[in-house]
């Protein structure tokens, strides 16, 4: 689906240009996906951006861009009024909107990278679509280099990622964050879960005995977790390796800061360093 949209958008661009020179009219772009907004700024194509969502808040400059509504429910009319040549959206959250835009014959690029490689490919695509391919390739190369430069690690600590405490919820093996944990040299203790975000209970966590715990929600601090009744036997709690106050966007946004997230995770999981 993503590929089809991409091709369609590309075809439109290519066919729309009579010559090989830079276009006189710049492509007007609306981004409904915070991670894509970050990509657009990272590849220097922010002048094409005419609309974004309330949640598109990075970098700071993005906050000033005209808002077409909430990520969960953007306003179709506002989008159309901007006369965009291309809209970035995501599925399944924005399905109704995507259908609507397709009906109105507005080109839509569906962003849904499932892992880090897909993020690299997406940065390339966005760069191509917005005429800044070279910058995009540079960015990707830099990100890849940073990943390569991560030191060898001798161990692969077991990690428990907590998405919520009411009820206890974690991320399963088919999630983006699972891939990040792997890249950072860790192993998600719930990678075998069938669901994407399964609800679990304390016993399951205790049995899998994670060596590090990541708190990806604001409800609890590390201190609350270490003082949980029945959790004292867990290795992560005993070693005090419970991490709160993490910038979740680094893990939940499949964008240019993804490598920042991986590096951060790496440092948390392998504190011995090089």
């Amino acid at each position: 689906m993503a590929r089809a949209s991409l091709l369609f958008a590309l075809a439109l661009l290519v066919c729309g240009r009579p010559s090989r020179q830079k276009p006189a009219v710049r492509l007007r772009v609306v981004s409904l996906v915070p991670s894509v907004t970050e990509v657009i700024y990272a590849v220097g194509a922010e002048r094409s951006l005419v609309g974004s969502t309330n949640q598109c808040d990075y970098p700071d400059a993005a906050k000033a861009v005209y808002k077409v509504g909430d990520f969960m429910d953007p306003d179709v009319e506002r989008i159309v009024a901007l006369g965009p040549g291309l809209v970035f959206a995501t599925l399944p959250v924005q399905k109704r909107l995507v259908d609507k835009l397709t009906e109105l014959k507005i080109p839509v690029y569906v962003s849904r990278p499932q892992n880090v490689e897909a993020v690299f490919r997406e940065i390339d695509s966005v760069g191509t679509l917005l005429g800044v391919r070279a910058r995009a390739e540079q960015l990707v190369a830099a990100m890849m280099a940073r990943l390569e430069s991560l030191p060898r690690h001798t161990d692969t600590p077991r990690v428990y990622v907590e998405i919520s405490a009411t009820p206890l919820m974690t991320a399963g093996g088919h999630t983006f964050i699972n891939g990040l944990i792997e890249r950072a040299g860790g192993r998600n203790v719930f990678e075998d879960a069938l669901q994407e975000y399964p609800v679990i209970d304390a016993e399951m966590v205790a049995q899998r005995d994670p060596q590090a715990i990541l708190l990806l929600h604001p409800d609890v601090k590390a201190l609350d977790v270490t003082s949980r009744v029945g959790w004292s036997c867990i290795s992560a709690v005993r070693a005090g390796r419970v991490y709160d106050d993490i910038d979740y966007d680094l893990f939940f946004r499949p964008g240019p800061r993804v490598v920042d997230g991986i590096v951060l995770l790496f440092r948390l999981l392998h504190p011995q360093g090089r």
Partner: protein
Amino acid sequence: MNRGRTTLIWFGLAAFLVLAAVLSVAIGPSAFSAESLRAMLALRFMRLTLGIFAGGVLALVGATLQGLLQNPLVDPFTLGVASGAALGSAVALVLGRISSAFLPLGGFVGALVAIIAVYMLARVRGRVATNGLVLAGVIMSFLFSSLVMLVMILGHRTLGEAVYMMMGYLGAVFTQRSIWVFVVAMALGLAGCVWLWSYSRQLDIVSSSEETALSLGVDTERLTLAVFVISSVLVGLVVSFTGAISFVGLVVPHLVRMMLGPAHVRVLPGSFLAGAGVLLVSDVLARNVVPGGLPLSIVTALVGVPFFIYLLRRRL
């Protein structure tokens, strides 16, 4: 009622609860070391206590409301009280931290608002008819459930959390501090149950008609108010820890009445025992039948809904 038979039934109820408790503690992932065994048992014991508290209170409140409203089709869930409590808890959750005592308070307020709203909606010329109550309860339930979703979305929570708040779970985590909130809540809950139990005779009397109750010396307005407030506190407390669990309060009192007769002095404590056991068994099923577990209300609804339909048809 045959004395011997009654004693046997009480014994049976107690035994059922003990069995359910053993099951609840015995089934589950195994421990990997002696030290972790203690922790595992602590976790299971918390779950057990929560289950007994929730099942017992919901069933007892169900029996009480059925008596007060002269209606065998009501329980905290069908009256929308549980959903109201869930809404109150959701609001408290979004506003405050989860380890605070906010949650039970929010639950109580939500439950009270719900029960008053349903009662006022269903009252026609000073009388409360069955259809009116059930209808009002269903409407309120819908309304509150939708509001829970809304509040959770506005508070940037995941849908999964919202679902579990409305479908029930026994896996709440407690810190060394918040467990005291739970202990106090349980103590309050038990006190509330005993208090409701003391209204047994009046509940018996009210089950005829309002005027009969008045003529027999029952202050129906005071009774209604007292029962509503205490029930709301109890339901609010439970739901703030476990989310809204369906149909336990509906089905269990009927089973208990069939075994022990309708006198509330027996039905209320009997419902507590049976409700606790039933909920523990449902929890064991919910956790183990499907990998990844199910929300509690799915199991209780699977049993409760056919029973509800059967009851409806018997009355009509």
